[in-house]
């Protein structure tokens, strides 16, 4: 332990200096853009979280009316299916959504009882009203409507959170505001336009079959078959019309993964279904070889490939005229899931820090006082060795700041808690070593032998205690979300740097001192 090879000395010194260099941008006032790029010094600073520095705030409106309409439309198709039941078809006309109800008229009053029986308990929250035996109305109750609105907002919040998490913007604040709005606050982000674009996309992906029984011209002139609709390709492609069957064959919520990739140099999205989605997709493609599939995203046909062969593996690709950025964003929103309702940005603001400049100032002063007090205490307790430990502690802090800056991790109040803990643990590692050396001195060892034994024995303890905490931190990172993740990052960084400073840096100081002074007794 006391012999310290040259390469280890060099590595230790280099790491410590790199720490200082990479931490340095945080200690100077923000330089001008021009100055930053001209210098060779690193310019990344720590990202401070919303609570410490503020950021941008978006107020989104959830299109709950769309969610309600879609619920009504889906009940409409259920009604259609019920009435058209094979073998006992009930004649009807004028099936449509009318206000908050689905209405139709029976052709034959004799079917009234059959229709009533089939539709009475069709959907929770819908009441059946019948007049003159033939006029049917399935009315959405007020409670059902309120519940649907609320659930649309709640689902939207969940999806927004997932999308923001996927972009790597750490520690957002996402909360419901009022009845149908979502307040999203993001710590100092660089590309708010991208976030807005990502949040603005509903990302409802569905697989339909193309209806090739009519030509486009016929369809456009109004001669559209009952179960089909006219959809267009995205704007950039010149809005090519397609006749698409209304029935959703496989829905996008069956996707479990979507990744950007390339095919023949073109950016594409590859996706994977869950088991039942994969089975459904396999059956569909097996039964429709030679027909065309329509991949519909937010009511636009992104592509309409002809099915060459049954696709049984449960995965597929989406091609189209995409840019790399579009493919990345599309995979991201597909992974995060579709919004139950479209979101529109009502308002965009910059916001000040949640904790307030005053609290942050107080926090800074308190941290400095705490640090000075700790340093004084260690020096008084352990003398020269305490001073070495204190210097190592300062290097430790600079390493933490450097790593946070390089990784562009977001520092919030919980993150600071992680740092306080690691300072405690860094001090602990030094205390362990120094106490152990003291003990060995009392046992009558010579200085070099005592230091050697002290280090050797404290070594396993430091490894065991730090690894235990590190393992816990890694699990918190892997399985936690949001603030838990942020805490885990700072904690892991702190554990690694404090192990380094205690076992490499303080040791280097002590070894250098030993070689220079060759002391007869230890000042401990």
């Amino acid at each position, binding site marked *: 332990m006391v012999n310290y090879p040259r390469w280890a000395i060099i590595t230790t010194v280099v790491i410590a200096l790199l720490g200082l260099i990479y931490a340095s941008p945080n200690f100077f006032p923000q330089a001008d853009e021009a100055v930053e790029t001209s210098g060779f010094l690193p310019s990344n600073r720590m990202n401070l979280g919303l609570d410490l520095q503020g950021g941008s705030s978006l107020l989104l409106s959830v299109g709950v009316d769309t969610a309600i309409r879609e619920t009504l439309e889906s009940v409409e198709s259920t009604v259609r299916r019920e009435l058209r039941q094979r073998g006992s078809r009930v004649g009807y006309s004028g099936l449509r959504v009318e206000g908050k109800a689905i209405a139709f008229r029976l052709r034959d009053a004799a079917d009234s009882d059959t229709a009533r029986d089939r539709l009475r308990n069709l959907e929770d929250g819908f009441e059946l009203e019948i007049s003159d035996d033939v006029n049917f109305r399935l009315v959405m109750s007020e409670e059902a409507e309120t519940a649907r609105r609320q659930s649309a907002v709640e689902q939207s919040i969940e999806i927004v959170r997932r999308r923001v998490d996927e972009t790597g913007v750490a520690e957002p604040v*996402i909360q419901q505001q009022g009845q149908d709005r979502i307040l999203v606050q993001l710590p100092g982000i660089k590309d708010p336009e991208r976030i807005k674009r990502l949040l603005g996309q509903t990302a409802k992906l569905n697989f339909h079959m193309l209806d090739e029984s009519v030509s486009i011209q016929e369809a456009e002139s109004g001669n559209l078959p009952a179960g089909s609709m006219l959809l267009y390709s995205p704007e950039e492609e010149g809005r090519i019309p397609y006749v698409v069957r209304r029935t959703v064959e496989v829905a996008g919520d069956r996707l479990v993964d979507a990744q950007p990739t390339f095919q023949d140099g073109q950016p594409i999205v590859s996706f994977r279904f869950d088991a039942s989605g994969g089975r459904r997709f396999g059956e569909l493609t097996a039964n429709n070889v030679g027909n065309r599939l329509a991949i519909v995203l937010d009511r636009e046909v992104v592509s309409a490939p002809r099915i060459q062969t049954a696709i049984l593996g449960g995965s597929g690709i989406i091609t189209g005229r995409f840019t790399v950025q579009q493919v990345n964003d599309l995979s991201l929103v597909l992974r995060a899931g579709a919004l139950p309702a479209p979101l529109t940005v009502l308002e965009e603001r910059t916001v000040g820090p949640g904790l307030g400049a005053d609290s942050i100032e107080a926090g800074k002063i308190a941290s400095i006082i705490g640090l000075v007090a700790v340093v004084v205490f260690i020096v008084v307790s352990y003398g020269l060795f305490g001073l070495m430990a204190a210097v190592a502690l300062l290097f430790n802090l600079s390493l933490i700041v450097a790593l946070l800056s390089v990784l562009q991790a977001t520092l919030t109040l919980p*993150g600071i808690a992680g740092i306080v803990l690691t300072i*405690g643990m860094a001090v602990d590692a030094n*205390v362990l070593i120094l*106490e152990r050396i003291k003990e060995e001195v009392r*046992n009558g060892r010579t200085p070099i032998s005592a230091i050697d034994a002290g280090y050797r024995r404290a070594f396993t303890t430091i490894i065991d205690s730090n690894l235990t905490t590190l393992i816990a931190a890694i699990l918190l990172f892997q399985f*936690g979300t949001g603030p838990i993740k942020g805490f885990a990052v700072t904690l892991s960084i702190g554990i690694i740097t404090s192990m380094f400073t205690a076992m490499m840096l303080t040791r280097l100081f002590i070894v250098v001192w030993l070689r220079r002074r060759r002391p007869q007794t230890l000042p401990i």
Partner: protein
Amino acid sequence: MRLSIVPANTKFDFVSRRRLAYPLSALLIILSIGAFLTQGLNFGIDFRGGILVEIKTEGPANVAELRATVGDLGLGEVQVQEFGAPDDVLIRIQQQDGAEAEQVQAINVLKEALGDQVSEYRRTEFVGPTVGAELISSAIWAVVLAIGAILIYIWFRFEWQFGVGAVIALTHDVLTTIGLFAFTQLEFNLATVAAILTIAGYSINDTVVIYDRVREELRRYKKLDMPAVLNLAVNRTLSRTFMTSVTTLIALIALAIFGGSIIRDFAYAMIWGVIIGTYSSVFIAVPVLLALNLSRESLSAGADDSEETAPDASAQDMPDTTSDK
């Protein structure tokens, strides 16, 4: 001259104190669970949502002053944030206990207190929690898995008794900390969750350090009976236990005194955690090894014996064997 708080060769009988420590900890845990069940936690805005008020002030707003004013109204947790412009401020107060009427009441109290500082109330709305159900369940899962991993790692490096003992001490510390929050009705928010995780980290670290010494002394003193070895290990790590706790406490006390209102609650929780974590390592984690029937045999196949076989180590360790008996 050197400050030395803990004398060199202490010989306290820590292990017998378990007769006092066990009932005391049991009582603490029962009180904690009781407080949690009867009073519950005083969840802040993060967890329960609240009321959002956007105001425009006469001239640039003094956010610090506004926070102090609103904070003193006794409406629970308050967040004040500059919003877009210097004279535009977002105030969030936590949802008040009770029904609609209490919320309206709180808004009135707020408006009265702000008085003529405000030129316009731009909107007053309810806001939902920022910590959703999914976030809570994933956090709980993460913590459970982390505790499981700690158990397995310590089992692998030591023996199962140590793993179980460490998890008992950890659970003890976390439960009593949550109990403290239930009992004092201190604000329970996201920063508190971080504080509790930090306490858990401290507790584990402290326990493992002492366990490491227990393992070492068990291998060294083959003839000493178990309680004596445990006492020896605690006594020999006592100055380190004390030094580390005191240093961490110094940093935390500085945060509590100078850190302002928001950091203060957080620092209080951590101060409690350091005290309870140190106590549980010494008085719970170590004696619990006896109850778990830790034996030397189970350690004989220990992972790492290099210290014992180090050439110059054994000779000088012997003299102090006699002084311990």
